[in-house]
């Protein structure tokens, strides 16, 4: 018994000790737990504090229902808000003011772009002879039933976050694999898919009214045709109308629609280039002809003025000389009236003297009655010596 008691006491003692250490450990644990709870509580309180950052808008949902704070459903920037932790409250943040660009290359051939350029070495590039299979590698039809490849881009901003978020389906954030899937197959259901499709619809409807020349700006008559800029404008207007149309009403604002790239089908590219060349040739031919016109007409005008000036000069000369002659004649005539014989002789001899004194080479031949004479003159390059008359019979 005593041994039993003793052993019992020992057990008790040992049990006590074990219990005490357990109690001690538990106490420490409880203290830690309490600290943890306080921490969690504090964390919960403070984690509920949030504010709306620049370039975003936010909405608060309590148990899934949109909850207005201070009368506004879309929370404003520059204020502090507090929300219960999940799952009671949930804050949806939306990139609102950020510009988003969606590029639609569904009207672009699927073939690697590097292989699109036809080479000059006589090698038929991939796709040169290939037909366009519907569904792979898209294209657009112009108003005159030409096939065109294009890449379009639309830039927009979320204008009405409430509408954008609550009216449109948004695809959940995807895993990496799904994102790759999305990359290859394109967005399909969500808001971005809708916007891309709206862009496609607008592009299709607009391009369907344009002749191919205007789309490619091949027309040589500049200014008279609608330009490429207004193709983009036309699409932009259509996109704007669609975005706000009843049945769509996305709550976004379209900033810009751009035609990024346009290209005729590969097989026709040489023919199209040829047209561009021909248009250049046309302009060159016109320019040459115009240059000719610009050279020849002024020249003719110059010549015409010369002709006119000559004529005027002639007129002046003739009139003036006749006037002078007239004056001279009148003077002489007055004298002549007074003394006809002497006057004439004086005039005649004056003139002959004048003339003869000027003439360096003179031959005086003696006349015998009315006989004939033979005169031999040396009219050579050498200057004949004055005063050496050749004189024979």
């Amino acid at each position, binding site marked *: 018994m005593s041994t039993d008691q003793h052993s019992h006491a020992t057990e008790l003692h040992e049990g006590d000790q074990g219990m005490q250490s357990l109690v001690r450990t538990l106490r420490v644990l*409880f203290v830690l*737990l*309490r600290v943890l709870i306080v921490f969690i509580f504090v964390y919960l309180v403070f984690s509920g504090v949030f504010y709306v950052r620049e370039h975003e808008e936010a909405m608060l*949902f309590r148990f899934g*229902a949109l909850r207005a704070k201070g009368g506004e459903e879309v929370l404003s920037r520059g204020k502090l808000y507090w929300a219960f932790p999940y*799952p009671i409250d949930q804050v949806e943040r939306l990139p609102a003011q950020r510009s988003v660009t969606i590029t639609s290359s569904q009207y672009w051939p699927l073939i690697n772009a590097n292989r699109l350029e036809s080479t000059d070495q006589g090698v038929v590039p991939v796709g040169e002879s290939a037909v366009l299979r*519907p569904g792979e590698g898209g294209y657009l*039809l112009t*108003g*005159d*039933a030409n096939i065109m490849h294009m890449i379009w881009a639309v830039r927009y901003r979320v204008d009405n976050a409430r509408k954008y978020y609550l009216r*449109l*389906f*948004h695809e959940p954030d995807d895993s990496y694999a799904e994102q790759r899937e999305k990359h290859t*197959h394109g967005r399909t*259901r969500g808001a971005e898919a*809708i916007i891309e499709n*709206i862009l496609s619809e607008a592009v*299709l*409807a607009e391009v*369907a009214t344009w002749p191919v020349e205007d789309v490619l700006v091949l027309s040589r008559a500049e200014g008279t045709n609608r330009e490429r800029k207004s193709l983009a404008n036309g699409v932009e207007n259509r996109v704007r109308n669609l975005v706000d*149309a009843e049945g*769509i009403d996305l709550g976004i604002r379209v900033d810009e629609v751009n035609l990024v790239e346009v290209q*005729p089908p590969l097989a026709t590219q040489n*023919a199209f280039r*040829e*047209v561009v060349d*021909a248009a250049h*040739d*046309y302009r060159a*031919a*016109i320019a040459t*002809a115009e240059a*000719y*016109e610009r050279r*020849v*007409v002024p*020249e003719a005008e110059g010549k*015409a*003025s010369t*002709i*006119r000036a000559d004529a005027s000069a002639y007129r*002046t000369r*003739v009139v003036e000389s*006749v*006037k002078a*002659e007239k004056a001279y*004649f009148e003077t002489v*005539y007055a004298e002549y009236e007074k003394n006809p014989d002497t006057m004439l002789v004086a*005039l*005649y001899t004056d*003139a*002959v003297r004048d*003339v003869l004194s000027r*003439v*360096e080479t003179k*031959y005086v*031949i003696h006349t015998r009655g009315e006989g004939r004479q033979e005169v031999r*003159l040396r009219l050579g390059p050498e*200057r004949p010596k004055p005063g050496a008359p050749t004189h024979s019979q």
Partner: protein
Amino acid sequence: MGFTDKRTWMQHWPVVLLGMLVAFIFLVALVTFEVKETEHAVVMTFGEPKAVSVDGATKAKLYEPGLHWKWPYPIDTVWRHDNRLQCYELKKGQVEQIQTADDYQIVVTTYVLWRIDGDAPELFLKRLNTTADAEEVLDKLTRHHRNIALGRHNLTELINVDADKVHIDGIADEILTSLQADAKSNYGIEVTHLGFKHLGFPEKVSGKVIARMKAERNRKSAEYRAEGKRDAEKIRAKADLEVREVLAKAEGEAKRIRAEGDKSAAEHYAVFRKNPELAAFLRKLDALRLTLSAKTTLVIDTNTPPYDLLRPGATKLGKLTLTPPAARPKAGGAK
């Protein structure tokens, strides 16, 4: 022992509270459900939608967004579906040819925007249940209505250089109207928009289109070149004409001016009529002066004064000539 007494119990109230909180959350989660702003929810008791009676007609009860009560799991289940617009485009690789009213074969892709019909989600639930089902139905319906509508229109209403003749939007609306009615009454799908996103030709035709495009382009290049020649020639001809006109005008004017000069000169000539012989004589003298220069070689005989002095008997004054004989000037080569 130590922690069973009252004091220790009081000491551990946070732990107890936490435990109770957790239990409470579990309980609440079991008997409540949340309806998001972006979804429709229908509660089903043993698979049968909870119904309400609106104007005598029984409809599935619609729950507002927020927290609602329900019986725990095996009794009540909640069916939800997104109530927002989503996009569905007909599956790729399933493009098919459609014949237009003017017998063109075309290939068309459309997309629709749709959402569950908020007034009658039970129809959607009954017939379709999931998005995938809905898309399958939409695929079928859209094709059907689209092909009917396109068969009534010409290709020229889809593509045309004359923008007023293109009725793509109208055709889309036409398809949409019939599609809307069908989808809503039969499947509880509300289609809000339909648009074309691709319009093309079948493979075989596209080859022909490309050949035609080539031919058109070649024709165009030839046209440009020929027009270039023609227009350039026109410009040249115009220029030449202008040159000739300008010159002819100038010549005419010159002639007129000269005539004018001659005319006014002639007026002055009148004075010579007083004595024509004298006038002729004076002019001759002038001519003599003008025509004889230093380089002239002059051959004259002794009949010409003053060289008649060289003749015998020159001292007899009466024999001297006064009227000059014709002088014969000769252009001399003397330099």
